[in-house]
């Protein structure tokens, strides 16, 4: 089974207020099975998304349940 992959990111698109950011995540079969198997399943991906897009390093998590924060 493939090892979980770290999050990868594409380059920012456009400039100024039109900046967009594409976050590409790759999940293995094992990770997908984990997400379907348990009510509170969540997977914290290895690595972080780092500046310059963000001022602070970001962790990426995939979960089965809606988080406590508001959904965009």
């Amino acid at each position, binding site marked *: 089974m493939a090892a979980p992959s770290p999050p990868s990111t594409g380059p920012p698109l456009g400039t100024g207020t039109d900046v967009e950011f594409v976050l590409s995540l790759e999940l293995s079969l094992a990770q997908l099975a984990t997400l379907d198997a348990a009510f509170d399943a969540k997977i914290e991906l290895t690595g972080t998304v780092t500046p310059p897009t963000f001022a602070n390093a970001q*962790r990426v998590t995939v979960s089965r349940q809606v988080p406590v924060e508001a959904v965009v």
Partner: protein
Amino acid sequence: MSFVTFLNPSRAGDSTGWTPSIGTANWTLMADDDDATTVQAPALNALDLYYLSPLPSIAYNMAAAPGYPLLDFWFNAPATSQVAPVWKLGGVTVVGTPVVGNGAWQAIADHPARPGGGAWHVGDFSVLQAGFKCTTLGGGDVVLVRKLNVQVNYVDRSAFAMVADNTGMNSATYPPRDPVPVQLDVTMSAANIATVDVYGSVTFGPITIPGQVYPVYVSLSRDPLVNLGEGL
């Protein structure tokens, strides 16, 4: 049974360096042999990459067939210009052998090595990008590409013989299926990015993944403030 299928460009990849002949997305011009719907290299090292249409769901493993996957594209360039096939997978880009133009349309079929090494598996094609690069551009040359596709040779489960066991039932032993990674793309606006940086987290979802029972949520949070799932 083994099958050869053709995967066509389905959306733009990481690079769109060629110029479309009409005002539309480059990948939409790569589906047919129409000489009037092409992309043109505006400069040396111009690179176009495309994601591909998905493999059929019956694809179980790659067939043991040397020469596949095969990247096909059709280009037209003078003899003073060259174009090379390109793969990109897992952040690694491989440029194949450049082909010299001959002043007419010519079909190129090449199979660059799998980026990152190792054997191809069926899951690669959901995240693979295929394209072409202008590696030599003569002064004033017009270098065009009109079509691209990728040929993949795969097997379904019927490739594994059914045999009678000692209970009188027919059964087959299947090898492990290739891992099939799934790619999720989350596009963030400048406002989303600002939210993450100021408030510490942002969440997208629900995202439905084909074959999964439950949708998922993707969350970015400021390291080390991973607070997803608390209180659930």
